[in-house]
């Protein structure tokens, strides 16, 4: 916008304002009506949806699903779409940071004096695209639960061998299934394919010690299971044994 356009806008705006109405009581009445609607919706939601409290937080338990509040779903979905590990920081912080910077600077790079949405095709299209994308990601996120079971045949060699390894394998399968790993990993047919890599054949890529190390000292965003290792080492070992048999 150059100086002439700025002055033109201010002139036009002064006229519009002259032809307008005083804030009190005209705008205040509308604002008040809207505030009443907002208050009523909050009260109704509180009455009908309540404020349930889940089970108590327990760093050592294994039944949880790391689910954020619904308006963060789109971020979590973004994590899933961008899979390669070296791109994960880009998805988690990079994209939101870039979006925020773009948002902050919007008035400084959009210098077009036009204000009508239908005459700003690029801005309007971009705006609608962002709304649709966020809506889609939120919808996807709302439908992706954290499955809590693993439908996987126990390998015949293990069954034949029997003994403590078989037992550990079965326990480990339970622990993994209940630990919310599948919010981020796919194992066989179950779970979400991302943001973490598939674990279906993890043993071909990582030796047992490395798996155990990953669980205690993982790369973000995966949570650490050190607390489980300290409080219930048998469960933790079972989990590692299970994973180290997946090939």
């Amino acid at each position, binding site marked *: *916008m150059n100086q002439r356009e700025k002055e033109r806008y*201010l002139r*036009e*705006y002064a006229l*519009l*304002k*002259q*032809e*307008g*109405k*005083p*804030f*009190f009581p*005209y*705008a*205040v*009445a*509308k604002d008040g*009506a*809207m*505030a009443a*609607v*907002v208050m009523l919706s*909050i009260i109704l*939601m*509180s*009455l009908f949806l*309540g*404020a349930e409290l*889940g089970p*108590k*937080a*327990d760093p050592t338990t294994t*039944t*949880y699903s*790391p*689910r*954020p*509040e619904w*308006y*963060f779903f789109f971020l979590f979905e973004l994590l899933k779409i961008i899979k390669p590990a070296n791109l*994960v*920081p880009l998805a*988690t*912080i*990079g994209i939101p940071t870039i979006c*925020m910077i773009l948002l902050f600077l*919007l*008035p*400084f790079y*959009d210098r077009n004096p*036009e*204000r*009508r*949405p239908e005459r700003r095709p690029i*801005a309007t299209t971009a705006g609608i695209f962002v709304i649709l994308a966020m809506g889609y990601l939120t919808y996807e996120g709302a439908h992706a639960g954290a499955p809590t079971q693993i439908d996987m045949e126990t390998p015949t060699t293990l069954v034949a061998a029997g003994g403590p390894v078989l037992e550990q394998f079965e326990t480990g399968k339970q622990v993994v299934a209940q630990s919310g790993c599948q919010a981020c990993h796919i194992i066989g047919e179950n779970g979400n394919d991302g943001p973490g890599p598939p674990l279906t054949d993890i043993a071909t890529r990582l030796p047992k010690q490395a798996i155990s190390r990953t669980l205690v000292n993982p*790369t*973000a*965003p995966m*949570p650490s299971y050190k607390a489980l290792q300290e409080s219930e080492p048998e469960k933790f070992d079972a989990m590692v044994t299970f994973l180290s048999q997946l090939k």
Partner: protein
Amino acid sequence: MPKLKLPAPPIPAKLNPRPARPGSTKTGPLDVAAEAGISAVDWVDERTSISGAARWMMFRKVPKGTNWFYTLGSSTMFAFLSQAVTGVFLAMYYRPDAAGGAYESIRYINNEVFLGEFVHGMHKWGSSVMVILVFLHMARTFFFGAYKYPRELNWVIGVALLILTMAMSFTGYLLPFDQRSYWATIVGVNINGTGPLVGPYLSDFLRAGPEFGATTLSRFYAIHMLLIPGAMAALIGAHLYMVAKLGTTAPPWIKADSPVKKEEKA
């Protein structure tokens, strides 16, 4: 949307008092009460000159064509106020104690305190409502081109408010300290940690150290109920000051009457 027209009834004679005739000194208790109210206001005004500001704020004109979309900002503010009030009541019972006290105190609020679950529910769902309203308000200002000259700075303040609103819900989510909130927050903090440059420092700051521990919860609590609300209140104040100073935009398709048309009307 129908145009909102306020009725303008004739004011009853009682409310439209005539000045007393000079010389007559009859004053009833009502007159004294009215006089006391006026002089109290005058007393404050003499020392603050606040009435000018109030008049400037309330009797400024809003431009022609202002419609219901323009209520989204004030309803966001209303949701913020509702969060503040319900939050104060929750804070009267809440204990940021990671060893179990936090969870217990929320359970106590839900089960024992009079209207406790209701207020807790209002705070919980109010956060969703506020996030929705903030996004709608932002969409309105975006599609109406309201971020353009001379309101650029107000847009920038708005984006800061958007980030703070999201930060509020992130820090608040941990406070009940149930399984959901605990694990979701761990993942959230870890995600912060993957960020470039400041990422690791940010997540260390949030956790109050390299491990997710007892002080993490009180840190989240302090951020959630002191740091961010204070910053938001100040920024909303600045936002509103600029709204009043610059005036709100007219919808972009509204044109001022041309001088010719104005003469015809007259």
